[in-house]
């Protein structure tokens, strides 16, 4: 390529790609340097690891990391585990399959905050779920279900919102497997489980990894579901970061922010690696 052609490409990339790199690069840079005491908004900047040491020894930080990982990993696993059988079921078209697919993907159209409102409406103290359980005689009185300490509400919300996304990705991958391959496996005596383990899973592993990673990153950084439906005695990492920022503790917020990015990056890599390790029959490729 000539230098003129290069110049043309750079000029064309600048307004789009250039802005993305500039904004995201600046944001990540500010988070990192602020976590080390620089870029002070209210006083003198001083390079130190004091903020890291301070935040890392707080129990709230450790709890937030563990809690965010718990939500991120379980949300990704539940969403994918529910989506896989549904994707396999919808692999071949049948009467009503388009309608079924549309219904299953409907939560994609619903905003997360609306989903949270709908959910707390259903599980409210005098909500429809409590009334139903009392009506069938399983519960004697209403129970407090919102903000449960195991964050089951948050996990249900995350799965509700993310399962359709996993389904969207996995349906495409599963439909890409040709009938010939599956017929050959069947002719060689492979049962349903063996066909899944030895044919379908290895051929759809990339799609599954993509679904796991994208859902994990979203769920590990969750703020709104946690604030509305999550346990009140624990904070997610995003919530802790906002809490520090609202108190004007920008450097502490930066420590949590950088940690969140690292957790998202390392966690998604490990999740993708573990999925390949398990589904490819413990063989590395």
């Amino acid at each position: 390529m000539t230098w003129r052609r290069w110049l043309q490409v750079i000029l064309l990339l600048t307004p789009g790609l250039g802005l993305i790199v500039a904004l995201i690069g600046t944001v990540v840079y500010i988070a990192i340097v602020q976590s080390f005491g620089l870029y002070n908004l209210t006083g003198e900047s001083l390079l130190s690891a004091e903020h890291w040491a301070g935040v890392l020894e707080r129990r709230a930080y450790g709890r937030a990391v563990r809690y965010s990982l718990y939500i991120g990993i379980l949300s990704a696993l539940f969403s994918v585990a529910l989506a896989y059988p549904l994707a396999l079921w919808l692999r071949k078209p049948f009467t009503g399959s388009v309608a079924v697919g549309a219904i299953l993907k409907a939560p994609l159209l619903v905003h997360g905050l609306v989903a949270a409102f709908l959910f707390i409406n259903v599980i409210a103290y005098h909500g429809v779920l409590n009334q139903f359980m009392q009506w069938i005689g399983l519960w004697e009185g209403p129970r407090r279900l919102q903000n449960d300490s195991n964050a089951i509400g948050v996990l249900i919300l995350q799965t509700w919102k993310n399962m359709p996304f996993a389904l969207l990705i996995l349906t495409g991958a599963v439909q890409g497997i040709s009938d010939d391959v599956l017929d050959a496996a069947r002719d060689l005596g492979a049962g349903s489980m063996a066909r899944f383990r030895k044919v379908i899973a290895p051929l759809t592993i990339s799609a599954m990894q993509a679904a796991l990673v994208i859902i994990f990153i979203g769920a590990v950084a969750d703020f709104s579901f946690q604030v509305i439906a999550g346990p009140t005695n624990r904070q997610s990492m995003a919530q802790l970061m906002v809490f520090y920022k609202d108190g004007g503790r920008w450097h502490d917020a930066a420590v949590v922010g950088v940690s969140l990015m690292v957790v998202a990056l390392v966690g998604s890599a490990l999740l993708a690696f573990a999925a390949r390790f398990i589904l490819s029959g413990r063989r590395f490729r």
Partner: protein
Amino acid sequence: MTRELINRFLIYLLIAVCTLWLIIPFTMAVLWSLVDPAEPWTADKLMPPVVSFYRWHNMWVNSSLKEALLNSYTLAPSAAILTLLLAIPTSFALGRISFPGREVAKVIALLPLVVPPFVTAIFFTSLLFSLGLHAWRFGAILFAHSVLFLPYAIRIMTVSFEQVRQDHIDAARDLSASTIARWRVAYLPALKPGILASLLIVFIQSIEEFAIAFIVGSPNFVTIPTLLFGSLGQDFVRPNAAVLSLILVVPNVILMLFLEKLLRSANPSMSSGKGMA
């Protein structure tokens, strides 16, 4: 026959699950939005005793709903247009010019989707503070939305540019069409579905975006999601939250369905009125 039976059973099961999953929650939201304050909807009553549009009217008159609607519906089309304008040159380069590192550039364009939104929001605010631009909320959110949603527009427009047929461009050039005329007759028909899809997807994303609007905009600048979030917190009034939820979700569902239809019809051969070679 057995497979048909299994499918039928699974469909009935799915309908039952979806009733729990979708129909009951949305019906509850609609009913709550219609509860008249004169007679509260208590646990012993299956349906609201008195229904009216009082809550809708009350929210319209006495809350920040008008302001939030104005902000959201000014921000979203502005972000959609700005994002598209920023995405077109990059998409042209990625879709029509072969250069070393093109695939890497396509991956880098996805960066805003990988960084957690609250991290971007908080440290973007930090940047605004240091530049002294934190009071310029509308502009700041518009800029952030435009950059954050660039990956969607770049991705869609890159595919659209890739689908522009070279023989159409060559034919226009052979007929001595000017640069503008070539764009009009060869590029635009193939790009039209992509342009509409990009505008629509960024519009929807911007209407729904919460983290940036919440962190950068608070406390003075409200959008529909930030108003809804506020109404779900300490000022939780169920019927008011139901009104806001429906205001947020209904237009978006319609737009999303339109978008899906648009993306399905995004076939350059159809849009250019010519068959594929």
